[in-house]
């Protein structure tokens, strides 16, 4: 029995969620291989080989795997599966993993499992449904267990201490006539990303405009925090969609979550309720966010936030 973790990377650096996925893989108590598929995977493969508990790094390098389109990477995964016969194939539940893993499952003719949060045994897992309002414990009888892992549910594996062997992996029957990558617009930021930040400051409709988010950025920079937003703030056009936290956006679980001017719609709470400490700042004492906050401050955010920032000087 052995486990394959699909590495997520941009041909230069490994994405953090792969480390969370490796921790989930460790709970299966089997040898772990990590597949690095890309156009120039060597550097990432070296990074992966140092991760604790990784036994083998499989490297599939080909120009056709540039931008790692799911139609192409899935062929590479299937080819690796043919050669090495894994019992478990998994990836982090990021846009990359969510796009890839079910496609791989279809090609292997097995029913996949999405976004597990607990590994009970090699065939039994828990996963949230109904936006986290019901947790399902499921047992898979699929011939190969193919699943994604919710990053916030598992610690990151240590990125050093390992010394995995590196091996070439087949590319597979990659077709280039199905899809084409045209480009991407990634939001550049010096702040930590939402997935890995220890502190998140999140703004809602109460911020009233995109410009006012600078109040949150100033505080975030003081605390080394990431900035997020509610769906209401994104829909109102205050900030870009990649900041959205909630059922339909990102799921986060930092040490400290500060909700500013957020009322606390069910769908927002679904995305942040696993945070360790929740602070809510809202002028409406009845706002539902206070029902789940550890510390609630009923105040005008336009006064309170600058006051906090100043107090941290």
């Amino acid at each position, binding site marked *: 029995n052995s486990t394959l973790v699909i590495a997520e990377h941009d041909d230069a650096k490994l994405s953090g969620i792969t480390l969370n996925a490796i921790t989930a893989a460790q709970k299966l108590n089997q040898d772990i291989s990590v597949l690095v598929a890309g156009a120039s995977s060597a550097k990432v493969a070296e990074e992966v080989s140092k991760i604790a508990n990784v036994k083998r790094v499989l490297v599939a390098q080909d120009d056709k795997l540039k931008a790692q389109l799911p139609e192409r990477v899935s062929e590479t995964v299937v080819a690796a599966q043919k050669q090495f016969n894994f019992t478990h194939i998994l990836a982090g539940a990021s*846009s990359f993993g*969510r796009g890839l893993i*079910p496609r791989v499952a279809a090609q292997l003719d097995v029913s996949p499992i999405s976004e597990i949060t607990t590994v009970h045994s090699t065939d039994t897992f828990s996963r949230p449904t109904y936006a986290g309002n*019901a947790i399902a*414990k499921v047992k898979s009888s699929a011939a190969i267990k193919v699943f994604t892992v919710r990053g916030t549910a598992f610690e990151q594996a240590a990125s050093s201490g390992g010394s995995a062997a590196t091996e070439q992996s087949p590319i597979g029957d990659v077709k280039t006539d199905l899809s*084409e990558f045209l480009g991407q617009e990634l939001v550049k930021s010096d702040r930590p990303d939402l997935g890995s930040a220890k502190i998140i400051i999140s703004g809602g409709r109460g911020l009233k405009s995109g410009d006012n988010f600078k109040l949150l950025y100033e505080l975030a920079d003081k605390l080394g925090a990431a900035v997020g937003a509610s769906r209401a703030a994104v829909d109102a056009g205050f900030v870009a969609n*990649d900041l959205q936290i909630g059922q339909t956006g990102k799921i986060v679980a930092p040490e400290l979550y500060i909700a500013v001017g957020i009322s606390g719609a069910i769908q927002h709470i679904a995305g942040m309720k696993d945070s360790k*400490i929740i602070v809510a700042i809202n002028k409406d004492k009845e706002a539902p966010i206070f029902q789940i906050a550890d*510390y609630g401050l009923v*105040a005008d955010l336009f006064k309170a936030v600058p006051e906090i920032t100043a107090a941290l000087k």
Partner: protein
Amino acid sequence: MKVLVGVKRVVDYAVKVRVRPDKKGVITDNVQHSMNPFDEIALEEAVKLKEAKKAKEIVAVSFGPAKAQETLRTALAKGADKAIHIEVDAKTAEKLEPFHVAKALAKIAKDDNYDAVFVGKQAIDDDANQTGQLIAGFLNWPQATFASKVEVDGKALKVTREIDGGLDTVKVNLPAVLSADLRLNEPRYATLPNIMKAKKKPLEKKTPKDLGIDLTSQTEVLEVSEPPARTGGEFVEDVNALLAKLREKGAIP
């Protein structure tokens, strides 16, 4: 372009779901249901393509119990030309996995020569986010998931997708599968005249057997439970009191 749109009947998004006493699922009896919101967006995009004369025919399909027909009638009222109901009894429906649904939709898409399958990126009940990718995998078609903008470009779709760090754009050659994200469009409401007209539109019934779909379950639900409840804490008087509490907990320096 002929588009197949998958629509699922789910517990309405505004309902606070409760776990059943037998812990095998959530309470769905006497609970408001509606079309999965992401499927509504997928359908709306197809209807818009038809209005722009880029799509010729839109067929809505739902795999589920008798009541799935309500969802299909809604789809017809919102602009689908025809509906297909793959009917199973309520007990079977409860055990369906995205895997089975995707197999059925893939079979229809292939047999009836569809150019595209549109689905919502996920259903808000199981939150699986699998069906579109599975269909694409079964058919070996390209997939454009989490779409926030769609343009028809000859025999291809140019799709902007919502990804973790921002947006990306891919071109998928038809036939292809598309999964709709939240900001792709704002679905229309069904008007009364259209609801009346929808009653006369064709609704075809199929069984899993007609499609040759094996419904053997691969994922058994052992238990459904409530998440650990999070209880509210305390109100603090002012900013200083808040900072003192957070420092005490070691949450801030």
